[in-house]
């Protein structure tokens, strides 16, 4: 019962906040709605028994990426930062207008239909099986998988993170004009 409740809450949080991300005109609010959506996804992970992934999701996104986004928004607050029109189809120089939304929605609809078809056909290839509800102690097993089966990817991701760290620091450092 808890799990169903959590699933419903998380799913609605995820989808609702994602829609809010798409329609909000204020980029700051968009970021906060993204935060809500990501927390919702963490809840979905929790319903899938992936507690470690869920906590990592919160850790990385809430503690890192969203704050980074907020900082980026603050540091790039130029002349068209604050949108003046709050309604959906009003004039908003950088946040999109009715044309862009029209194109986006139509393409999204096409993709949605396409993928519904895809999901229907995929569910024939991969029939859903009945497994036990929870993985026992995902932390230990993920640890073993990371250093055994996926060790190459693990090491590469560490190199990737280092490269991203150094690269980001170099790209964004203030330069003398």
């Amino acid at each position, binding site marked *: 019962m808890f799990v169903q409740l959590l699933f419903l809450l998380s799913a609605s949080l995820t989808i609702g906040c994602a829609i809010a991300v798409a329609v909000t005109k204020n980029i700051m609010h968009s970021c906060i709605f993204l935060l809500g959506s990501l927390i919702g996804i963490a809840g979905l992970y929790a319903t899938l028994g992936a507690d470690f992934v869920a906590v990592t999701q919160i850790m990385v996104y809430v503690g890192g990426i969203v704050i980074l986004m907020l900082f980026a928004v603050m540091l790039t607050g130029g002349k068209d930062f604050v949108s003046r029109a709050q309604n959906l189809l009003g004039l908003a120089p950088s946040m999109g207008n009715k044309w862009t939304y029209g194109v986006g929605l139509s393409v999204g609809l096409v993709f949605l239909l*396409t993928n519904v078809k895809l999901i229907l056909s995929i569910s024939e290839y991969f029939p859903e099986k009945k497994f036990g509800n929870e993985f026992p102690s995902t932390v230990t097993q993920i640890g073993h998988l990371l250093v055994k089966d996926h060790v190459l990817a693990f090491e590469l991701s560490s190199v990737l993170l280092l490269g991203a760290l150094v690269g980001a620091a170099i790209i964004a450092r203030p330069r003398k004009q």
Partner: protein
Amino acid sequence: MEYTVGSIAPIFLAPVIAFVINAFFGRKLPRQGDWLATLSIFISFIFSARIFGDFVFGKFATDYFIHKTFTWFDLSYGSNIWKVDMGVYIDNMAAIMLLMVSGVAFLIHLFSTWYMDHDEKHGRFFVFLPLFTSAMLGLVLSDNLFSLFIFWEVMGFCSYSLIGIYNKKEKAGDASLKAFMTTRVGDVFLLLGMVAIWMVIGSVSYVDIYAAIAEGKFAGQTVIGISLATFSGLCIFLGGMGKSAQFPLHVWLPDAMMGPTPGSALIHAATMVAAGVYLSLRMYPLMVLGDLTWFIAVTGAITAFIAATIALVQTDIKAVLAFSTISQLGYMMIGVGVGSYNAAFMHLITHAIFKACLFLSAGSVIHSIHEQEMPKMGGLRKYLPYTHFAMMCCTLAIAGIPFFSGFVSKDRILGDALYYGFMSGQNPLLAIVPILGFAGAGLTAFYMFRMMFLTFYGENRMSHHHDDHHGHGHDDHHGHEIHHEHLSPRQNVPLLILSVFTLGFWFAGTLTGQSFGKVFGEKTEWFKILVEAPKVEKFVNQSREQFGTTDTKPSVELPKAIYEHQTGYAGPNPDDHKIHTAHTIGAIASIIIAFSGVFLAFLMYIKKSVKPLADIFPAYTETLKNRYYFDNLYVDVIIKKGLLTLNQALSRFDMGVYDRFAVDGWATVNRWAFKASKWFDNVVVDAIGVDGTGVAVNLFNLVLRIVQSGKIQFYFVILITVLASYIWTLNI
């Protein structure tokens, strides 16, 4: 036995550690780290003494040896064995050698701390000295030619650095280059010999070489038409010639005195030159197999004699000692050549000790009066009593006066040479070996005492001379500045310790080299009993012991080698009687010759009743002073005439033939090719290819300009549309 890595490795590693510390942190240490170097050599000495004690005092039998290996690198693939083993090989000879090297080197280090005090190169000197010693110790410990070669080259480098340590002096730099280059000639041959051996038996380990000789693997093998044993033996001996300064590669050794005197002592006595003789002794079975002994003997004899004659007229005290070193090395080679293995090695040891002492004494003299030209010395006996005493002992030893070590060893070599030259039924021309040997012995006694008399006796000539051609430039510090010498643990105690060991009975147990006049029992003849030419048969099917394992061989007494007191040869010999006669004659003759040499020197330089050599043979003296023009020969004839002419011929060939025909002709060909390709380029490539492509691209551009709008979101749309159309059309 209980030998592990821990009890062998410090012999080699302690000086290396001292070298590393001194090289990097020497300047920050008190006294620039000389105490560290000395201490490290003392540690080596302690460990060497333990091995020596075990080998000599009854723990092991004569033919016992320790051989431990580890794999250095292994490149074997499939059935091809390509693996290099390193290891430690200690037999009686190596044990004695280790003790000698570390002991003498320790005393030299101790002396150097006094000699190099307040010298600007103090620190640098004590960087290379321990490295030099460690290389020699490593060379003695190594079990194969490969690691021997490594240490051999390290020593070459160290001698280069030590000779040229006063790098502000041009002569020092030249001398160091000369030493490096001359020994390099021999090293090339040594490498060749090693490669030849490797080709046949796939290993350069001593044990494998001995086993291969015993199994007859060398039989029938040839290299460029020469039998392999002869070829490799000759090459290895040539390497030894370079290092041991044998004629005609002896020219570097006299110049090596440009370095500080203790460095010379280390080079001349314990380490560098001993390495060549040591190598020849190690490879003795190969020399015998290759029938090279006569060559070695003749080389040694010529070296011994020529160097002795040159030493007659040298005025620099160190030059006299340098030529005497060459001469004595010649005797060692004679010993190797005439089959007097034991005596040759004994001479190596005794010579190392008294020559180290001589050089240190000379250093003491030079450092006290800042002068090394003998005509400007004289009468130093009063000022330097301890140095005088030590130097006199050593001079007596090198001159071959009975009861001293030089007599013991040299006389045995000469006795065997006499037998070899006259009585063994060899080629009669080989009689030149004992003749030159005895002549050299007489000359040795003469020039050594000449040096003693000029330096320590007569009146003090220092204040009368104002010759400023010598190098030190301390003209204003003349005789009155000499202080009376006091007994000091760093200046003359090393000399006195070394001079104690110039007595013959330490080595032979008898007062003479032969079996006359025995004073002690058979026990004291340890040297003769323990050292013998390697018997190659016992090395067949020896199992290797890995490094780090404890010794599995039993420590019980193995059967002792048969020692025949009359001959000095191991094993029964049919010519006992002849040998005995030869030894008797040799002993008497060498005593007479030595004393007459001493007497002649006495007449000439003390009594002045005989005119000096220069007045008797002026032309010959000039030749001798120029050292038989060997340096001129090498520089003027071989390098200037030979190599320069060759260079000019090659350059003429290059300018005339290559340049005119090949280069210019090729240019003409290119010119034609250029014209052809220009047409092709203009018409085909440019007009059709390039311009045509441009037109085609322009056409495509019209289409692409619409698609490639630069708006990322447009790309997204295209991407998603294409993806969706894939999914629909492929109908997955």
